[in-house]
């Protein structure tokens, strides 16, 4: 096997990842050696700083020429990192920006907001985000099954621990254990599917697998299906799409709220990143030939998965009384929405599904983190995450309530917000590809979602018990307003973000490897 070592010149390309690795180590050592009396918020700020540095490195690399080998830019040759197993293309860079941005906001909202008695190891609470987001970034960048798997597991295993961070709380323990077990089962399922892909191609490189599958013996098509459905089940779990969603509500409820936000946004985004890569790196292009019908069927299965997720997520959310569980189900439904652009393939008039996907993902990240930040305020003041806790929020903290209204409008997909345009672009994509049934389900379930999203608004405005003001911490306030303003800005001027994504992302270069 031809294996290519890492060159020193590649270090710059890997700077975002390396920053995180070094930061994780340094901050953990600092945590170990500074005395107990020192406020651990310091570590939170350091973590945030390292996230920002990493983000700066990513944004320095992102650009229309990002994949060109920096060693000899004239040649125009594509950068081949680690034998093609690591791809720093704009697909990855865009997702990394979203991942890092989301993590940064989540850390920002946790600083000074997490209660000491709740989480005994505050230092770890902060810097554990680093390996987790690193795993997510590796997943987004991987061009190889092994890299992909390692990144995914780095993310998953760190998440298990973060969910169980409230050591004394048995809900947290329970959620973490469930997550760990089911996560491990799903990892095993993914691996099992990958093992067949490897067996049929003799390689773990996505591009090589794609090429091998196209020439594979027709008698293998059953195995291809098996591996596809195993992968689908595993990834379905990671993105919490119904019917593989059962873990999500319990885990979300058990986890500390910032971690819940992390799971809902970053973990999910990473799962989608892989799904996108694998679907278009491995299975796309295998359609057309009668011996290998998997392509069409694969995308159709995704559509069905999306439909089920939208329906179950939104319908089950109707019954929830706990805001975290509600947001969990909302996340399941959103997984459905995000699956739609992946399931909607390219066609002549529809070549933009990545930008639709990335746009909605960004909107989803902003509105969800904002919502969780508001929930954190509620939890701090009432001590529980029941929806009842929102009662009279408008009279107790009018500005927070106003922000929450905007976030909810976005979640529900009401104009003019980022969430609305995200759904709108996705819808247009499906309609351009004439998948009317999926569009109809998407719209109908969105309407169902109005009910439970607005139940929070009802609490905030129509049920008032008291009017004693609620205090928010500055970090929470900043987080909420960054998210809200971002959401609204994405609604008011959607072409800004979308156009930029379109500028950065080049289909042939960033998705079809090589």
């Amino acid at each position: 096997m031809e294996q290519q070592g890492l060159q020193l010149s590649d270090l710059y390309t890997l700077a975002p990842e390396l920053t995180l690795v070094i930061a994780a180590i340094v901050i953990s050592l600092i945590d170990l050696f500074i005395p107990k009396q020192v406020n651990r918020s310091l570590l939170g700020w350091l973590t945030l700083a390292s996230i920002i540095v990493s983000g700066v490195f990513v944004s320095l690399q992102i650009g229309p020429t990002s994949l060109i080998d920096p060693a000899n830019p004239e040649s125009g040759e594509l950068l081949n990192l680690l034998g093609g197993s690591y791809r720093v293309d704009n697909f990855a860079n865009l997702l990394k920006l979203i991942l890092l941005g989301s993590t940064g906001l989540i850390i920002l909202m946790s600083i000074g907001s997490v209660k000491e008695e709740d989480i005994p190891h505050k230092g770890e609470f902060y810097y554990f985000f680093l390996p987790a987001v690193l795993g997510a970034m590796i997943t987004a960048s991987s061009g190889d099954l092994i890299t992909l798997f390692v990144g995914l597991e780095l993310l998953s295993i760190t998440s298990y621990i973060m969910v169980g961070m409230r050591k004394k709380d048995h809900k947290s323990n329970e959620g973490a254990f469930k997550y760990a077990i089911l996560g491990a089962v799903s990892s095993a399922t993914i691996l099992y599917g990958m093992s067949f892909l490897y067996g049929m191609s003799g390689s773990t490189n996505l591009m090589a697998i794609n090429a091998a599958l196209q020439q594979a013996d027709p008698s293998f098509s059953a195995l291809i299906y098996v591996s596809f459905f195993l992968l689908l089940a595993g990834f379905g779990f990671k993105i919490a799409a119904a019917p593989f969603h059962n873990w999500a509500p319990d885990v979300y409820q058990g986890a500390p709220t910032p971690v819940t936000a992390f799971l809902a946004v970053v973990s999910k985004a990473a799962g989608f990143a892989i799904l996108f890569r694998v679907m278009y790196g491995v299975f796309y292009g295998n359609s057309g030939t009668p011996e290998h019908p998997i392509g069409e069927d694969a995308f159709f299965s995704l559509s069905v998965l999306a439909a089920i997720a939208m329906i179950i997520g939104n319908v089950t959310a109707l019954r929830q009384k706990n805001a975290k569980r509600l947001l969990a189900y909302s996340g399941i439904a959103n997984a459905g929405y995000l699956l739609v652009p992946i399931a909607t393939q390219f066609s002549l008039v529809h070549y933009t599904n990545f930008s639709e996907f990335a746009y909605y993902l960004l909107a989803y990240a902003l509105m969800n983190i904002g919502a969780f930040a508001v929930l954190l305020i509620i939890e701090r003041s009432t001590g529980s995450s029941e929806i009842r806790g929102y009662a009279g929020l408008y009279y107790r903290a009018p500005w927070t309530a106003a922000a929450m209204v905007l976030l909810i409008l976005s979640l529900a997909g009401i104009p003019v917000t980022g969430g609305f345009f995200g759904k709108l672009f996705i819808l247009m994509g499906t309609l351009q590809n004439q998948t009317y049934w999926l569009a109809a389900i998407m719209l109908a379930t969105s309407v169902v979602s109005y009910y439970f999203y607005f139940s929070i608004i009802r609490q905030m405005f129509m049920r008032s018990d008291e009017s004693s003001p609620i205090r928010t911490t500055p970090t929470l306030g900043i987080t909420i307003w960054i998210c809200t303003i971002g959401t609204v800005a994405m609604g008011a001027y959607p072409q800004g973000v979308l156009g930029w994504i379109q500028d950065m992302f080049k289909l042939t270069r960033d998705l079809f490897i090589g």
Partner: protein
Amino acid sequence: MSGSIAPYLTLGAILFCIGLYGALSKKNAVIVLLSVELMLNAVNLNLVAFSKLGVNPSLTGQIFSLFTITVAAAEVAVGIALLISLFRNKGTVDVNEMDSMKH
């Protein structure tokens, strides 16, 4: 080496199914963890078999299985740690009793 790959794959499938069944249906959390381990080992068996007898035999499969082993170890380590913490708080390892968050 010549030889058929079918027996390996069959064994792998059987192991995987037993593991999956165990992971989803057993009451004792420790057994659940063991079942997960069984699933991962089924994968390793597959990978190693493919690396020797697959369509294009290559070493990659064995490397992959090394990673799988490592990750499985980490996963189970975390699983056990969480289980201990749960056991300290609830005093049980019965999966059926983990139902404090139902709606």
